[in-house]
């Protein structure tokens, strides 16, 4: 049973504040992913929990006990580094056994524990090899083995598969998931890759410029982004964002993107839900490419537009549609739009539309 709580963490590098009043409670066995671009403070947060970085303010609690003044060695937390950090002068066996050698464990027990972990990670054949003889994936397995072997209170992973190639990354992602389900330990995982985050996390913590932007399940952050940053950071292809004006038009709401000649039709209740925001003109519409519906022939609610660039991505295409001076990216079946310049008709699926306050970027929480 391990719970980790971060309370009001602040961290400065010189005059630069890299973490701002960070609060987060992590429950037992939870898989938490810190997601953000490089320099957002996610790795610093992880290193602070590990004890490799001091904090300037706040408390780090492990099972209710403040540990921010404890040395890394005394926190009983394991960490997997992006660079693997396997000790080159030791065999795989010695690498995995290394954390146990720091304890008073007998060599017989060490042997047993290492072999048990090796079996789980399928690295038994590699125990006598040196790290330099291993492939990237095997190195990472060994690094994870070294972290798991002493059954730490929590596992910290700093972009553990970031250095692997795409195919191996996918394999190791599945492997980490499998291990977590099987071993079940509180895990904090840092990555800039939203696919990793979505596929692994129980909850995702999205960070930007030292602030937490949103904490939620993968479904939460995808379907209910708290602000424009999260909306654009999570999801691929990226969500369309455009300032929009909303008007009451013949019994329905009409949402006009930028300087487009015609507005998209929305249900009337949008007007009451937006509650005056529209009148100020400060609304930004967010719509993922799959929420932009495209058809060849005219239909009620669809407006005519011209296709611009088409990116074929195998199972689907991303089509840039010219709406006024803005481009709206739509996801279509492969080959649905034949080429640039083709005239098509487009509509926005009201159920998939997000509305944000333009000034603050915060979500208005309006869903239809």
């Amino acid at each position, binding site marked *: 049973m391990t719970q980790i709580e971060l309370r009001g963490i602040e961290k400065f590098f010189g005059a630069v504040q890299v973490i701002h009043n960070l609060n987060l409670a992590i429950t037992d066995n939870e898989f938490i992913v810190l997601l953000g671009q490089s320099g957002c403070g996610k790795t610093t947060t992880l290193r602070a929990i*590990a004890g490799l970085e001091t904090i300037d303010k706040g408390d780090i609690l492990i099972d209710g006990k403040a540990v921010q003044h404890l*040395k890394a*060695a005394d926190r009983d937390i394991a960490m997997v580094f992006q660079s693997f*950090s396997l*000790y080159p002068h030791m065999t795989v066996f010695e690498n995995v056994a*290394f954390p146990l050698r720091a304890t008073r464990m007998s060599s017989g027990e060490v042997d047993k524990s290492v072999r048990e972990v090796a079996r789980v990670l399928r690295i038994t054949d590699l125990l006598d090899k040196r790290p330099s003889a291993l492939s990237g994936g095997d190195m990472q397995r060994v690094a994870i083995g070294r972290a798991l072997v002493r059954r730490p209170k929590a596992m910290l992973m700093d972009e553990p598969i970031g250095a692997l190639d795409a195919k191996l990354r996918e394999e190791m992602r599945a492997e980490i998931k499998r291990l977590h389900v099987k071993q079940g330990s509180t895990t904090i995982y840092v990555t800039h890759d939203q696919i990793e985050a979505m596929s692994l996390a129980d909850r995702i913590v999205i960070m930007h410029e030292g602030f937490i932007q949103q904490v939620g399940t993968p479904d939460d952050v995808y379907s209910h982004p708290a602000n424009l940053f999260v909306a654009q950071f999570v999801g691929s292809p990226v969500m369309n964002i455009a300032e929009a004006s909303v008007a009451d038009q013949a019994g329905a709401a009409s949402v006009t993107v930028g300087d487009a000649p015609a507005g998209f039709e929305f249900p009337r209740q949008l007007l009451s839900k937006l509650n005056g925001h529209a009148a100020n003109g400060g609304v930004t519409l967010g719509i993922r490419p799959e929420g932009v519906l495209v058809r060849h022939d005219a239909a009620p609610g669809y407006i005519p537009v011209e296709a611009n660039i088409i990116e074929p991505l195998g199972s689907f295409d991303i089509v840039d549609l010219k709406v006024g001076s803005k481009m709206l990216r739509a996801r279509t079946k492969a080959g649905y739009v034949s080429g640039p310049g083709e005239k098509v008709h487009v509509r926005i699926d009201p159920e998939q539309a997000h509305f944000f306050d333009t000034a603050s970027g915060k979500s208005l929480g309006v869903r239809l």
Partner: protein
Amino acid sequence: MAAVRTSSEVAFNRIAIAAVLIATLVFLAPIYWIASTAFKPKELAVSVPPTVLFEPEVTPFVRLFTKRVQMQKTVDPQVYDAAPWWEKRIYDGGERVLKVGKDVQLSQYPDRFMNSLIVAVISTVLAVGMGTFTAYGFSRFKIAGEADLLFFILSTRMLPPVVVAIPMFLMYRMAGLNDSHIGLIILYVAFNLSFSVWLMKGFMDEIPKEYEEAALVDGYTRMQAFFKIVLPEAATGIAATAVFCFITAWNEYAFALIMTNRRAQTAPPFIPSQIGSGLPDWTTIAAGTFLFLLPVAIFTFLLRNHLLRGVTFGAIRK
């Protein structure tokens, strides 16, 4: 993989190989000269033109290790017949080996050689050890005025050491450090330390910080992490630094000449001092020099792989 080479590249290669061969010959010639002289009969040592082919003998080494005096009359044939082979060689040269009772009196060479070993080994261990710790500190921690401190350490090498020989001599005499092992060791550590710090810092900077961080998280103190992880990783750098420090201390002549004369005298000032007594005995001097070359040659040969990395260090980015 065999790379395709143009004819001009092949030509360049041949010229380069030729140049390396010539340079090697030039560098090896004095060593060959010393080595061959060490095994020459006395009268061939200074023959003109130089003798290249001769029957090698070890008599110079016998002379090197023994105390001898010139004989006034020829040796008694009975004594000659009873003498061991090496003593006969001395009698052949018109000398006899000094003895106390039955015991052969050894020359000072073994003592001086031992002094050289003691001073060079201890000063190398100290310089490399201190340099390694210092370099680790500079490499891993934020230190106020780090650049200035490193420059200060480097600046101790900007002056030729001999410039301070006289004040050093006076200070050593006052402190009672002249003609002592500890005095020479302190001097050589001082010479080598800045070099050791700078070279080791380069190697330390190359060792990823994550290794120690992993060890820290794995339950070790920083000191344990240093000894269990950093030191083994730095072995190459330590070996390279040690070779350079050892060679400097082993070959040092000027200060050894000034600061020592008897008890703590090292081999470099001792060997030429033998020239003075009577007619220069070049073969014995060559024998002493030849033996003196061996420890450095062996040490360097054992660590040659590390040394090569030390020399090309920084030239290749990983």
